[in-house]
């Protein structure tokens, strides 16, 4: 575990931002739509990265907060009117945060693999509540038929029905979440989380209320997942219990690991990589009739990635840097003993 949040991979972030901002002029509407979806998943993955890479808490039930926010948005929006965007957004995010607060307060008593499993248990409970009861339309799910609107004194700055507007709305939120988390992780709060990840006992002995810190991180991560969940509901207008399923929790965890846990941009890269790989492997244009065996290709690629890229896709550069640092340091300490 290296301490490197202070060093922001600025170049990456700026390049990605410019590339994403330029995309709509280079790409087909479908690409824009797909990228919107990937950016939503990237926000989702970033929220989990705060827990996995930032705090060392591996949650296997993160889809619950995503789903709760999506359901909150779909269920609480008025049926025949456009909902107020800021209001619905706030409600969805707060709903996710509230559920994360309840779950977090309980599950943070456990550790390691047990933590992984209890988070899963609470997510499954939420899943079955939406799947088996009439709260959210059962297994068929519910719709959000009219997209929420932002009106400032009768003026509408943008219209989410327009795919391009939605794209930029998502991009702005993604950038905001990324910047927010970058600041957060290099702030004192973030450093305390990093300390907790590495050595919680020491942090407590130094005087940090580590439980409160972890709970704050857990709720924050839940709320950020809620941002993604809100966007998902608003984009497609279709919310289904499967959003809370363990497949979904697993998928977002995979994005974080594949991109490289411990690096913020890893979550973004992971979201793009996993979605695009699947897109590519399932595409008949590229793989012809073998495309129906896309799972085989995706599975094999994942296995190869684990074997060859232990630190994830974004870890390659860091590994080289760490190796150099170690070598330099080894030279230094050898020199010190000589003296």
């Amino acid at each position: 575990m290296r301490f490197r949040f202070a060093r922001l991979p600025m170049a990456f972030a700026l390049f990605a931002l410019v590339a994403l901002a330029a995309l709509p002029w280079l790409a087909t509407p479908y690409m824009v739509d797909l990228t919107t979806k990937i950016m939503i998943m990237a926000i989702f993955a970033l929220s989990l990265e705060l827990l996995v890479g930032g705090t060392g808490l591996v949650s296997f039930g993160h889809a619950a907060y995503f789903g709760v926010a999506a359901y909150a948005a779909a269920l609480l929006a008025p049926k025949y009117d456009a909902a107020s965007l800021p209001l619905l957004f706030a409600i969805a995010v707060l709903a996710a945060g509230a559920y994360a607060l309840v779950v977090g307060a309980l599950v943070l008593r456990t550790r390691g693999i047990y933590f992984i499993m209890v988070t899963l248990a609470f997510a499954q409970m939420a899943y079955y509540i939406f799947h088996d009861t009439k709260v959210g339309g059962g297994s068929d799910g519910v719709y959000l038929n009219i997209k929420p609107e932002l009106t400032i004194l009768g003026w509408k700055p943008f219209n989410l029905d327009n795919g391009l507007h939605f794209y930029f709305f998502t991009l702005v939120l993604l950038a905001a979440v990324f910047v927010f988390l970058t600041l957060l992780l290099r702030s004192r709060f973030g450093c305390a989380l990093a300390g907790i990840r590495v050595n919680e006992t020491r942090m407590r002995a130094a005087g940090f209320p580590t439980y409160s810190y972890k709970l704050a991180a857990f709720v924050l991560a839940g709320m950020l997942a809620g941002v993604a969940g809100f966007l998902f509901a608003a984009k497609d207008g279709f919310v289904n219990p499967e959003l809370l399923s363990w497949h979904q929790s697993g998928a977002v965890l995979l994005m974080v690991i594949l991109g490289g846990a411990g690096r913020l941009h890893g979550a973004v890269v992971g979201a793009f990589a996993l979605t695009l790989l699947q897109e590519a492997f399932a595409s008949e244009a590229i793989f012809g009739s073998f495309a129906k065996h896309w799972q085989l290709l995706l599975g094999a690629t994942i296995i190869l990635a684990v074997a060859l890229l232990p630190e994830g896709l974004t870890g390659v550069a860091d590994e080289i840097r760490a190796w150099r640092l170690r070598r330099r340091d080894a030279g230094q300490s050898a020199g010190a003993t000589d003296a």
Partner: protein
Amino acid sequence: MREVLLRATAISKTFGGLIAVDNVSLELRRGEIHALIGTNGAGKSTLINVLTGELRGANGRVELDGQDISAWPQHRRARAGLGRSYQRTNIFPGFTVFENCRLAAQAGHQRPWSLAQAAGRCAVSGGAAQRALRLAGLEGHEHRLAGIMAHGQQRQLEIAMCLATAPRVLLLDEPLAGMGAEETVRMLELLQGLQADHAILLVEHDMDAVFRVSSQVTVMVDGKVLASAAPEAIRANPAVQQAYLGGAQ
């Protein structure tokens, strides 16, 4: 009489059926190094863990500055001025030496909500960390990774991290373990320098060191206090010689 900073009264702690600490009382005064000796498994580390609140569910009363802190959680005790070091080096191996100390110092100045400022730019914790590193003799090593330093240096860092939290009471669990002769001397000098405005509990196996610096020695056997007196009196105590010093020689 010097001012009592930490007073522990009738501390007991059991694990299942096993009594690890049995009705132990002791007082730590400002200006004093209080040595705690005893064989392995005598309950010394357990006692420290109870005093700092790392272990919960003990009987007895712990007072800091005359205030009952028995019900306080560990982090609150730490922030009230109770600092400790660990017997086994317990640092953040992937962080730099400076960051280790700075993070410890940050405990006294947490402000988790101030997101705009990078942690590394926090002047308060940075200054405290720098002072602690100087005291512990780690100046010049700030930017090395803690995990790949020599063992003795890691022990120094352990102390520096404890000092960085600006404690008034130091509970040091075998700080000299694994240190070379030169480093030991330096560490003892450091402790003697700190003595003036700290109360120090020193758990140690190095008897020479103990008798050199301490003004009070408590001997624990099987979780109980066997004797507690000035070093000369302990050296002369037949029960202690029988149970501990004799056995060792």
